[in-house]
């Protein structure tokens, strides 16, 4: 059997040392009635070659972005992942390591997480970041939990222009946390600070997305001021690759910054695994869920890293923990760190500027071809919504028959937008790709 070393001789020697005559005897404590005494109804084992063939056949039946020109975004994006990310993630000492509870065995992972925490704080303008959450949806639930404990309030405000999946997950967690969720509708693609202020009375926190789900830039400082007027903690759900050109949430007054990290360093991979990030002001550090790496010294006075403030976590605080999270998304967060290091501050700025320039080009060409922007007055980052004049689902089907996916059909999440798609334009799309999109949509 592929991964087992045991030979017949090994078995005999080991059974003798244990003092039993058969492997079957080792299971004598299992009561007869709960013994499974037939063979598992699973397909016969495949060796590596046949296994690869089977999986390749399954993979070939997916329309991935190497086979279809894609403008799909809506929370998961087709950014370029540099080869150095793959190379680092292949290092077995990192890939196959456990959580760094024994710090002397794990300085590699611990220092990498410390560097990741630093990068997230730099990008978001916050004081502390955890070592990652599951994804961009669960970190919103985490932020609500922190806010509830910090303020004693149970009401949470979320903008309608925040990713529908984020809102749905927060609602799923709400009953267990004892949260009341209130949504503030979007007005022509963004959120009104006055409406937000009224909704935020007695709220623990306000969550808004920047850029929002429609790709529109929200009046973020005004939304933060509105939340602060109500003494609610402002929480920004942001895109890491936008933070080379957009202001850091900490600078304009947010208490927490969260989001989906996938755009930095991860392939789309049918949505996972990726990583959620959660960063906050220092005053929330003891309530933050998830692991945190801290700096210290060893017995010889040399600098080193350890998991710290572990008393927040489940393995110590158990039923009073800030969260039950144990396994997180460390390796994917590490990929993000490598990618951000490869970009550097200049590269990150250029990436943001390129996405915006391509986006503006796409909007111009589509408008010239007779398509209507859903929110023409709004500045957008990386994606925008257009009306197709008829059922978006039909147009998507027709476009895909020509090898182009024009974007996410918004009608499923928002009223009055059955004819609209969300078009994402990343640095992987060229002006020629955009010309092709316009050509296909015009003919669809």
């Amino acid at each position, binding site marked *: 059997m592929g991964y087992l070393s045991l030979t017949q001789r090994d078995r005999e020697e080991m059974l003798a040392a244990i003092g039993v005559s058969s492997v079957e005897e*080792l299971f004598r404590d299992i009561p007869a009635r709960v013994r499974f005494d037939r063979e598992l109804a699973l397909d016969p084992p495949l060796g590596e070659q046949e296994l690869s063939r089977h999986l390749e056949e399954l993979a070939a039946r997916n329309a991935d972005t190497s086979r279809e020109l894609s403008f*799909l975004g809506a929370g998961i994006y087709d950014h370029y992942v540099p080869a150095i990310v793959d190379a680092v993630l292949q290092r077995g000492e990192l890939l196959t390591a456990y959580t760094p509870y024994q710090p002397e065995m794990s300085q590699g992972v611990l220092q990498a997480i410390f560097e990741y925490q630093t990068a997230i704080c730099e990008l978001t303008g916050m004081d502390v970041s955890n070592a990652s959450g599951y994804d961009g949806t669960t970190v919103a639930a985490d932020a609500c939990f922190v806010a509830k404990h910090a303020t004693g309030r149970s009401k949470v405000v979320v903008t309608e222009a925040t990713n529908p999946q984020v809102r749905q997950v927060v609602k799923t967690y709400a009953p267990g946390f004892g949260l009341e969720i209130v949504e503030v509708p979007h007005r022509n693609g963004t959120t009104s600070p006055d409406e937000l202020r009224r909704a935020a009375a007695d709220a623990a926190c306000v969550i808004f997305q920047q850029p929002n789900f429609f790709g529109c830039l929200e009046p973020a400082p005004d939304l933060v001021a509105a939340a602060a007027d109500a003494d609610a903690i402002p929480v920004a759900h942001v895109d890491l690759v936008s933070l080379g050109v957009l202001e850091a949430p900490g600078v304009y007054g947010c208490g927490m910054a969260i989001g989906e990290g996938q755009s930095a360093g991860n392939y789309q991979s049918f949505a996972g695994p990726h990583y959620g990030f959660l960063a906050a002001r220092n005053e929330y550090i003891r309530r933050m869920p998830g692991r945190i790496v*801290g700096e210290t010294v060893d017995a010889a006075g040399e600098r080193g890293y350890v998991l710290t403030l572990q008393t927040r976590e489940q393995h110590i605080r158990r*039923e009073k923990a800030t969260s039950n999270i144990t396994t997180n998304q460390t390796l994917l967060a590490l990929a993000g760190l490598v990618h951000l290091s490869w970009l550097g501050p200049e590269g990150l700025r250029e990436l943001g500027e390129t996405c*915006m320039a391509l986006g503006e080009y796409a909007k111009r060409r589509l408008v010239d071809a007779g398509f209507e922007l859903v929110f023409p007055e709004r500045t957008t980052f990386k994606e925008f919504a257009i009306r197709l004049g008829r059922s978006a689902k039909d147009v998507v089907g027709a476009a895909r028959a020509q090898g182009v996916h024009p974007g996410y059909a918004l009608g499923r999440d928002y009223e009055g937008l059955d004819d609209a798609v969300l078009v994402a334009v990343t640095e992987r799309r060229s002006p020629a790709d955009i010309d092709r999109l316009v050509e296909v949509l015009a003919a669809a």
Partner: protein
Amino acid sequence: MKLIFEKSQSGRRGGELPKPDLPAADVPVELRRASPPRLPELAEPEILRHFTELSTRNFGIDTGFYPLGSCTMKYNPRVNERLVMLPGFRDLHPYQEEDGIQGALELMWRLQEALIEVSGLHACSLQPAAGSQGELTGLMLMRAYFEDRGEGDRRDTIITADTAHGTNPASVTMAGYKLAKVQTDARGNVDVAHLRELVDERTAGLMLTNPSTLGLFDEHIEEIAAIFHDVGALLYYDGANLNAVCGLSRPGDMGFDIVHINLHKTFSQPHGGGGPGGGPIVVRERLEPFLPVPAVVKGGERFRLDFDRPKSIGKVRGYTGPFGVFVRSYAYIRSYGPRLREMSEAAVLNANYLLALLKEAYDLPYDRLCMHEFVLSARTLKREHGISATDVAKRLMDYGFHPPTIYFPLVVPEALMIEPTETEAKETLDAFAEAMRGIAREAAENPDLVKAAPHGRPVKRLDEVRAAKRAIVKYGFEDHPDMAEPTAEPRQLEAQKGA
């Protein structure tokens, strides 16, 4: 070793990006970033060297023996790393149309079917991102189930074992339930008499892992199941220890109604330094309507995402779950097929063999055959020589092994929880036992050597007290605090004393 930020030099950078010849688009000034983020500035060769150096300061399963209890640190097959990079998996967007994701949906459906067979239950959701999230999802299912029956207000308590992993009580709190704890008896089983006192009409359910964190199969599991089912309560199985019983005993047959499986334990997803993982849940038929949405279903030869689940608890995370983890776990299960049973038999054989080699040198709290893991105690070493479980763990590092889990489960003082897994060769087990016996001798003959361990790692013993008192959680750039002052002795404290 320097931080990557300390190697940064202004003007250097890694990669170049495409520069399309287009006019710039401006961010409105009130939203524009004023100061660039201080990300590292290095060229690519130096970036790669930095992360390579970091990896040499780390220890993975690829490096050596990693016997952490209930973590199942088994070999992570390399073919799986190749398979997740197939473009049809790697470059697939989650919102692609249904006809364009048939391969992905089929993989997920087949994985679900395999997990259903291994669990002995009826329906599966792959959505939860980790075991903890599976636990929370399972408790949310319980709540939805009882509310649907009009019993939601009445049933407010979940019972966990005193040997439970910390996630169990933490999940109970997150789900909004009250917690009760049942004791363990002298044979390492759940104390059935105590359980009968605790279970009543306010009980929603039990959370248990079997075999337990002591590595022991509960001999009374049928009786335990009956106690809960008789009052209309449910049983939740924490799948952390499933590696012991695949193809030998199924949680559904033991009486459990909801099971979570740790794909990063039993089914070989690499731990990645802390994650990712996967925590799918498998349930009995009557709980299926409440599963997270969407469900992956098969109709004829096609596969679909079914969102029409009016009783679903909702979504516990984005999209359909960590797909890359499914690719690896599915490939792993296909490489064993029904021979998963041999995997578990080998895991239990390896553990019992190692136990036989070590039970004289250390204290053994429960003298029974173990399953895939066992717990020893360093209690005598502590009492006679002042050597704690922490000291044993640190000294093992000098022998080239990752230590086992220490100070867990809480019911055993100075606990050493050891799970070898099935992919270890006999020689490795012999060498580990040799090292453990050696350390027991050193405890008597040269305790200072053990107390000052490790001696052969990139760092000496680290001061965790200092890190907790003054939390430095990111690089300080201009005002980096002075860490040069050495401590007189490292202060790393154990959870339990007075053994």
